[in-house]
């Protein structure tokens, strides 16, 4: 039996990978971060809920229907709001505000729909419900297989689409250089619309699958926006496959690090963390160009040394190190969003172009600056 936490990390990672790929697709085409993206996830959640509770089908059918619902909503948003605004010459910030407004509108619509379910259809758990029933295969929940397989299928499909088909090549051209693509006779608007539809579809499909694993509700999609943005930023915002990797990293680390912080890393884990703190801090002190960076580096280095010293001395002072070894307890779980946020912060400060921009050869010292 594979431990429970690894399974939930796998599912989480797969779902975030799918959501981040969608967000990156919209960002690549229109260059606007879509603040309404979380609502597409919520649309998928309620597609799954409706299919299961109202029509007595199952959440998988609901997720596939959700793909359609999300795609249509996304297309309406793009064709009805963003494209006309961009054609009027709105600035980037105006477009961001517009997506924020669309977000509020979607929240209103979803609220009306859940009230309809609650008061007219008499489903009292509509605003906030427990995980939906899943089939089981070999002792595992079905979503454990479906979510990773869906991600692999989507990544392969996108890879084949972008490299082997005329439409995919047109898509890449339209993203890289829209005016030139237009000159070559590519229907850029059509390509962008399809990208937006795929993006909304991915989000809603992932949201539908999410209901099999976690309790969900009207606010779930909006709350996930931190993880989705972090995944996309880690992926570099302009690479679909980077977004997939970013989603996997964020999803897995959020589950596993939170769990470890709660239960403790043990002595070996604490030593590794101390080493990361110490070495990272020392590097910052040596390489930092600003006194602020050096100060932060010094604090990290001192913390790293402190953890080791305190551990060797047998915890005479109750600060940080005994908790690292034995765990902070269940109090950390509400703060689990700190981990994606922290990854986003580190990404923005160290590798703002994303995970694929790391030059491995230079990092290993094979290539000089």
């Amino acid at each position: 039996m594979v431990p429970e936490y690894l399974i939930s990390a796998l599912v989480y990672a797969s779902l975030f990978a799918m959501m981040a790929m969608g967000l990156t697709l919209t960002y690549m085409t229109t260059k606007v971060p879509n603040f309404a993206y979380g609502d597409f996830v919520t649309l998928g959640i309620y597609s799954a809920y409706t299919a299961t509770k109202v029509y007595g089908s199952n959440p998988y059918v609901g997720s596939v229907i959700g793909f359609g619902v999300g795609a249509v909503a996304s297309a309406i948003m793009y064709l009805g709001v963003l494209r006309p605004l961009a054609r009027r010459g709105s600035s980037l910030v105006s477009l961001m505000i517009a997506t924020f407004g669309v977000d509020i509108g979607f929240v209103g619509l979803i609220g009306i729909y859940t009230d309809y379910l609650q008061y007219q259809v008499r489903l009292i758990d509509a605003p906030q419900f427990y995980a939906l029933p899943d089939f089981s295969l070999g002792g595992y929940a079905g979503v454990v297989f479906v979510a990773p397989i869906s991600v692999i299928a989507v990544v392969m499909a996108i890879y084949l689409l972008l490299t082997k088909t005329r439409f995919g090549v047109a898509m890449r051209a339209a993203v890289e250089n829209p005016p030139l693509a237009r000159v070559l006779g590519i229907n850029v608007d059509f390509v962008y619309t399809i990208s937006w539809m795929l993006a909304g579809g991915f989000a809603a499909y992932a949201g539908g699958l999410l209901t099999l694993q976690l309790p969900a509700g009207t606010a779930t999609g909006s709350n996930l926006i931190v993880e989705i943005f972090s995944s996309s930023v880690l992926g570099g915002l302009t690479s679909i496959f980077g977004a997939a990797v970013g989603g996997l990293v964020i999803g897995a680390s959020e589950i596993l690090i939170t769990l470890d912080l709660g239960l403790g890393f043990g002595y070996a884990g604490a030593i590794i963390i101390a080493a990361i703190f110490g070495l990272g801090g020392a590097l910052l002190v040596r390489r930092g160009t600003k006194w602020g960076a050096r100060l932060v580096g010094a604090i990290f280095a001192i913390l790293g040394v402190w953890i080791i010293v305190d551990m060797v001395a047998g915890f005479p002072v109750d600060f940080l190190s005994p908790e690292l070894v034995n765990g902070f307890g269940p109090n950390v779980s509400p703060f689990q969003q700190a981990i994606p946020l922290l990854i986003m912060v580190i990404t923005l400060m160290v590798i703002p172009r994303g995970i694929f921009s790391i030059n491995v050869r230079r990092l290993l010292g094979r290539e000089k600056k």
Partner: protein
Amino acid sequence: MALPELIFFGIDWVSFSIDFLEFYALYLAISLSLNLEFGYTGVPNFGKVLFIAGGAALGGILSGQLAARILGIGANEDYIAFSARIINSVNTQIVNDPLLAAGLLAFSLVIAALIGGALGFLASYPAIRLREDYLGMLLLGMAQFFDVVLRVLTQSQPISVPDPFYYWSTQGSGVETLVDMVVMVVFAIAVYFFIEKVVRSPLGRTLRAVRDNEDASAALGKDNAKIRRNVLIVASALAAMAGALYSFYAGSFEYDTWTRFAWTFWPFLIVIIGGAGNDSGVAVGTFFFTLIYKGLQQEQPALQPYIFFNANWLQDLLLAALLLAILFLRPEGIVRERSSYTLRKGTLGTIVRESGVEEGGAGAKGPGFFGRLMSRFRRKSESQPAKETG
């Protein structure tokens, strides 16, 4: 002494106008600070709620704890769990001690400003050098996370806040809300004139330069990231002070109140309605928004029996539609942004007379009369070296 009542059409207009003005002044102060960031400098602060709620929560809680410590109340009790009881006995002591009340008010405002500024610096630090979209995403994420922090910190229950104006609550019903309202209005007016002063100065033109053309302002020796950072710090401090004042009005800090709808979306909507980069526009926009919002609030109970869903959703939908409609139909808002302020005609005349240049004596070569005049003025009034106009 109770406030008089003035009832027409089933509405008590005295309490309605106090309520209206309180809301107006609160949102005017917040929207003006957003306008300083977004309207003048182009910093998209999509995490506005973070700074306002931070000021309200920490300013309120810390000043409450300080007062309890000074008065020796509830030293052995969990402040968060028993805040209502502790604050109640703090308030009864405040009545007899105007000095303590004034001190508490000043302390919580200063604490709120410091915390707001610190949060503004920290929350934006990683992305302040990057493009607006990265900064917007980061601030939105930070606000979302801070929401969780506040929920855990307050244990999802209302935290009572000491009330420096408690004396007036013993003077008759409704008097205290009147005092709260007056303080808020004074604060909003102060913010208005402060920001107006900033944007009319050379610094104001620098902010617009950072917004409109980063490359140009960098070429003229301005550190864009530093300017954006400082603007975020100042605006966040102002917003946090507004939040602290609001928590006195509300009487407690309730986690549920601090949604990104009410404290991020509405200020953006107000600035868009009124016109970005324009303080008088924001004042007008806040007025229209307050009218719309209070009108919707007034009509909700009448509408509710006819619809099966909560009327609040309809309000969200209408406000979102309003935002999009303005972005489509009149993106510059009600009041257009004016170009940078220049000298008045009278002042120009004085300079001309003092400088001894003959009026209308524009030479055939070199900069014209007006150009020479302006370069003179620039050299006189600005601390930075003047750039050549010729």
